[in-house]
Each structure stands twice: as C-alpha cells, then as structure tokens.
C-alpha cells in the first residue's frame, strides 16, 4: 500500500531562512497561488523522501508569534491550528530557526507547542553558526523543548539529509495520540514568561560568541553611515537603472533579430493574404516586441532579489524611514515601493508587511507611480528614437540619464502625492511604529536567486502568451478590418475600426500632441502598458509595410515631433494604464472606491503632465 501524502508546514520568524529551506526541499516543484478570500501568497511545493514518501510542504508567511496582527500572520496561525478553509491540518510543523539567532524562534516554538500539532525544530544555517563559534547541544535542546531537533544547511547540497531522514522516521511511527490544542492568544505577562523560558533553555544548551558577526558590523559601519550610506543607496539605484539599459541591449538585439527572422520565414513560406498578415504582423511582431523586454525584467529582478537575499533591503528601509516619514510613508513601505519598480502588482501585494491600514492604503495609492518594468518598453522605444546616443561629461549616457530622470519624476510625484494624502486626508493621525529586524548579511545563493528569477520570468512570459497575445490579435483585427474599399487612396489602416476609434479620441488628446495612432495604441495599452509598443508597431507596420515593423523607432522619429515624444513619456509616468494593477488595488483594499480614486487621480496627473510638457516643448520650438 502506498504511504499517504505527508503534509508539512514551514513556520518561522522573518529572516529564518525558511524560504531557502523551502527552495532546497522542493527545487522548482513549486506552486504559487493565493489563499482563498485574502491576497496572501500561498507557496506549496512537493518532494520525495529518501524512503520514497511523497511530501507536500507549505511555506507559511513569517511571523514572530501566533497573535495574527496582519493577514499574513493570521494565515500562519489558522493554518497551524487547522482552521484555514480548505487546507489539510499539517501532519508535521517544521519550525525553522536561524541557528545564529535562536531567541525569538525558541519563544515562537514554545507558543507553537500549545497548539498540540507535531513539531520539529530545524536549526537552519548551522554552518554559519558553527563558523561564528555558536555551539548547540542538539540533544539537550531537544530534551529541554520536548520536540525533535535537526540541523540543516539549506544552501548546501545534502544539507537537508538529516531533516529528510527524521521526517521519514516520524512518518513511519504509529501516529502518537495528538496533544490537545490549548493555544490561546498570549497575554503580555505570558509572552514575557515564554521569552524568559526560551532564554533559560538557550543559556543551558547553546553557547554564543561574545561579539556580533564582524562582517555585518563592518559592512553596516559603511552602509548605515549617514553620508556614505545615502551615497551607496543612490549609487545602487543608479547602477541598477544603467544596467537595465546597457547590459540588456545585446540580449534584446538577439531576441529581436530572432523574431525578425521568424517573421521573414513566415512571410516567405505563406502566400500573401490574411493568414500571412495575421501571423507576421499580428502574432510574431506583436508578441515579439514585448518578449524582447524579458532581459530587462530579469535584470531588475536580479538586483531586487540580490539585495533582498544579501540583507540590504532592511538597511534601505532603516535609512529611508524618516525620509519617507516626511512624505507620510512608513519605512516598511520602501520594500513594496522598490518592488513596484519591477511591477506594481507584487509591490501592492507586498504592502501587507505594513500592518497599519492607513499607512498601507497610502502606499497602495502611490505604488503605481513607481516606474514599473512594463513602462520600460515604451520609454526605451521613445528614448532610442528621439534622444541621441551620446555621452554627457564623457561619463554618463544621455539616454540613461533621461531614463533616470523619468524614474526620478515617478518617485518625486509619488512622494508628493503621499504628502498630499497625509495632509488632506489623515492630518490627525500618528504614524505606526517602524520595527524591523536587521538580519546579518549573507552571501546570496545562485540557486535561490535563479528560482526567484525563473518564477517571475515565467509569469511575464505567461502574460505575454495570454493577455498580451489576445490584445495583439484584437489590435490586428481592429487595424485590419474593415478592409480599404477598392481603389482607395492612402494606407489601408486609415479605413479600419482602429482609425475610427483613434480619430474619435483624437480631439480629446490633441492638446497633448497625440495623433490618432497614439490614441489607438493607448486603448490596448490598458491591458498592459507594454502592449502599447506592440500596438504602435502593428499600427505603423500595417500602414507602412514590413520595413516599418523592423524599425519602429526610426518610423516614429519621422512621424512624431520631439514635443509629442516627450509628451507621451510624461503621459506614461502617470497614466493608470494597467487593468491588472487596478484589479489588484480593488482586491487589496476591498473597495472599488479606492480603485476609482487611483484611476482618476493618475489620469488627471497624466493629462496635466502631458499637456504641460507638450506646451513647454512647443514653446521651445520642439514642435
């Protein structure tokens, strides 16, 4: 008879190395979804033990206690207690500890014992602890706690062997009669007593080095220095954005010529007609022009994941707390806002680390102003077409500088909006406390970075393959039908549905310097910002033939004035051009009203900024 599926749950404090253990156990066999009704990420994976037992493991959100102060922490509590809707009670709860830092985890474990679930303590990062001179009496600790204790080195091959072996042993045992669940929220006095008990157990079984990690102290002396620290933070952000531009270029050209080749192949193989036009102009050049931005998205996430794994993100939050506080933001908002540079959706979802509702709402409202990676295709296209590729002071690339300026404009306006929200809406309100652990620095691991990038790249490609593909087909349809009447003058697209919609919108957008082709591209751009590039490609490719699609930028440079290009850049800093972001805002705030407010204020800002840019540019003779 096959052994039944074993359900494991990983519980631990933030920074306990829970996620690297999860990655080590499951590799790429991971499924990321949401818990029903809430937008807390549910990470489940599976593996097979050495004895061949199938195990499913859920990585629960990090928490310091079972009190459930935030939606994430409530999930962890309900899951462990078996109260979570539609979830199996875990057969075994793995309480994951950073071996160099046991105090807080042992207290959590003592609280977990009250739930009556079978428990095992995993002393993770045991190698680092040993190197720092931490010695743990594992048997003694196990006896004092009354639960099995194993050591693990999640980041090393074979480092989880002990854990796997013990899991097999526990699974093979006849299920012990479960202890009753006597957990209830701890009072302050009980919490204090539990921490004392944890400290007593640690004193008797663990010997700690007298000095903190010397590398962490040395790095922090520089990184948290009032002057050097800010300089380093600015330098990191600057390098990140230059890298997105410079490093990605060769790969993007490779992808781009690949899609061009594919397009030519289809062009040569198929007879001229509707099918050829659909595949070549609709599918290949449309989807290709979006997929081409994969290298840039990978680079952005590479930086974010590296900084997160290294331990720098918490330091950035520490430095930014008061500066952000001046704009009415919480220090913890820094990480969600930085994630919003990649995409506002994960950014908005990660605002759950902010437990005060008003702080969280402010962060959600301004997150879409952070320049997400979907804007990069639009920015890149316009900058390459209109900004000369030259060096400024023989140091900085002018195009990179403009890009930096666009990011800076997004950040500045986000801070300004946040300040206004605080001033007008929540004037009488004291900020929620900023309390954050600054973990010791750790060398980021290639494997966990790779898994992180892979997951995100897959999400992007899925979007390119579904939403964006569907939009491309729609655009191609709108741009191709109805066909031009026989003997008509001018390009066929001038007679299509797309032209009708674009021309209907043109009077509204004319003060911004937008022509009807731009108006056409903005409509599907609502599905995802980057679609606008592909849409422009399609609109101009169909109008000008295949040669145009190969050089969208060059075509734009001949069709648009500099003022129009700058105006469109300004539009894209602010415009609420992303239906999925709006959907996530509605879900996270639980209110259509907040979604409508976000949409309205961003649209108003976009219109105003574009109008101002266009007017000023015309005044300077850029028309």
């Amino acid at each position, binding site marked *: 008879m096959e052994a039944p599926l074993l359900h494991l749950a990983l519980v631990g404090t933030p920074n306990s190395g829970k996620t690297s253990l999860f990655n080590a156990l499951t590799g790429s066999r991971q499924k990321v979804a949401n818990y029903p009704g809430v937008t807390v990420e549910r990470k489940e994976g599976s593996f097979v033990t050495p004895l061949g037992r199938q195990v499913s493991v859920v990585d629960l959100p990090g928490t310091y206690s079972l009190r459930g102060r935030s939606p994430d922490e409530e999930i962890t509590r309900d899951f462990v207690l078996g109260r979570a809707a539609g979830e199996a009670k875990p057969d075994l709860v793995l309480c994951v500890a950073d071996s160099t830092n046991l*105090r807080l985890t042992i207290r959590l474990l003592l609280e977990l014992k009250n739930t009556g679930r079978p428990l095992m303590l995993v002393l993770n990062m045991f190698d680092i602890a040993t190197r720092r001179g931490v010695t743990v009496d594992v048997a003694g600790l196990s006896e004092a706690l009354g639960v099995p204790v194993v050591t693990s080195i999640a980041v090393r091959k074979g480092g989880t062997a002990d854990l796997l072996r013990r899991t097999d042993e526990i699974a093979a045992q006849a299920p012990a009669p479960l202890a009753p669940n006597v957990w209830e929220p701890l009072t302050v006095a009980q919490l204090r007593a539990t921490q004392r008990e944890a400290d007593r157990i640690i004193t008797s079984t663990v010997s700690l080095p007298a000095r903190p990690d010397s590398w962490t102290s040395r790095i922090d002396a520089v990184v948290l220095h009032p002057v050097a620290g800010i300089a380093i933070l600015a330098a990191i952000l600057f390098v990140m954005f230059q890298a997105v531009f410079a490093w990605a270029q060769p790969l993007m050209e490779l992808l781009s010529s690949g899609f061009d080749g594919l397009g030519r192949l289809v062009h040569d193989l198929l007879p001229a007609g509707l099918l050829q036009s659909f595949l070549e102009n609709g599918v290949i050049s449309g989807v290709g022009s979006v997929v081409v931005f994969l290298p840039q998205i990978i680079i952005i996430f590479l930086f974010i994941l590296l900084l997160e794994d290294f331990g720098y993100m918490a330091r950035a939050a520490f*430095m930014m707390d008061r500066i952000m506080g001046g704009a009415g933001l919480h220090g913890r908002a820094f990480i969600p806002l930085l994630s919003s540079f990649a995409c506002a959706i994960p950014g908005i979802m990660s605002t759950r680390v902010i437990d005060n509702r008003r702080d969280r709402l402010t962060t959600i409202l301004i997150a879409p102003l952070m320049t997400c990676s979907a804007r990069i295709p639009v920015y890149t296209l316009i900058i390459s077409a209109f900004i000369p590729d030259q060096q400024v002071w023989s140091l900085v690339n002018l195009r990179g500088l403009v890009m930096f300026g666009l990011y800076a404009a997004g950040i500045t306006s986000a801070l300004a909006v946040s300040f206004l929200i605080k001033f007008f809406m929540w004037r009488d309100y004291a900020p929620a406390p900023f309390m954050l652990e600054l973990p010791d620095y750790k060398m980021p691991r290639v494997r966990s970075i790779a898994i992180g990038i892979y997951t995100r790249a897959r999400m992007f490609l899925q979007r390119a393959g579904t939403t964006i593909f569907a939009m491309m087909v729609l655009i191609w349809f709108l741009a191709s039908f109805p066909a031009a009447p026989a003997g008509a003058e001018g390009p066929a697209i001038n007679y299509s549905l797309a032209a009708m919609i674009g021309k209907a919108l043109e009077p509204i957008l004319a003060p911004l310097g937008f022509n009807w082709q731009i108006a056409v591209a903005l409509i599907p751009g609502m599905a995802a910002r980057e679609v606008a590039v592909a849409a422009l490609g399609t609109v101009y490719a169909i109008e000008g033939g295949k040669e145009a699609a190969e050089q969208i930028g060059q075509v734009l440079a001949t069709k648009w004035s500099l003022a129009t290009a700058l105006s469109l850049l300004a539009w894209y800093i602010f415009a609420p051009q992303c239906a999925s972001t709006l959907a996530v805002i509605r879900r996270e705030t639980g209110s259509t009203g907040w979604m409508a407010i976000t949409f309205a204020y961003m649209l108003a800002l976009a219109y105003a900024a574009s109008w101002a840019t266009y007017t000023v540019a015309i005044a300077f003779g850029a028309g």
Partner: protein
Amino acid sequence: MTETNDARSQLPLGLARRGYSGVIHHLSPADAGSALSPSELESRLIELGFVEGARVEVLHEGIVGRDPIAVRVENVTIAVRRREAMAIIVA
C-alpha cells in the same frame, strides 16, 4: 545626584546615543506616546526580544534626527523608532 559605577541612572532607550550599551530594566509602554496601545506595543517589543535583563547596545542612528536607531538586543539587531524606544527603560 551623581552617577556611580554600581548604580547607573535609568534612562529611556529612546534618548540613548550611538554607542550606548546597557541592560533593560523594565518596559514602560504607557509613556512612549506610540500610535499603538500600550499592551500592543509591549507585546511587539517582547516579540522582538526586548525583555527585562536583555543587554542592549545602540549600534546606528538614522540620518534625519538620528532616528530610527539600530539596537543590538542580545544577538539580534532591531531597527526601532525613538518614539517606541522611549518605552524601553535601560540602566
């Protein structure tokens, strides 16, 4: 009164400067003026390891107004704003 070596005067951690090290004497969450209720603030401080008898050292100060502070509590480093640190009375 003058301070002697064996009986250091008590002070809220929120007033301590960089380099200060001492031991937590007690928590006094009602005096902190935090946005949190006293019992919630006390719970959170304990969950981050701020309990009586724990050794603390102020490692770093923020850039604006020397706020927040990074405090070594036993072997963990916690960033906390001075306002909340006022609840931690050290000696």
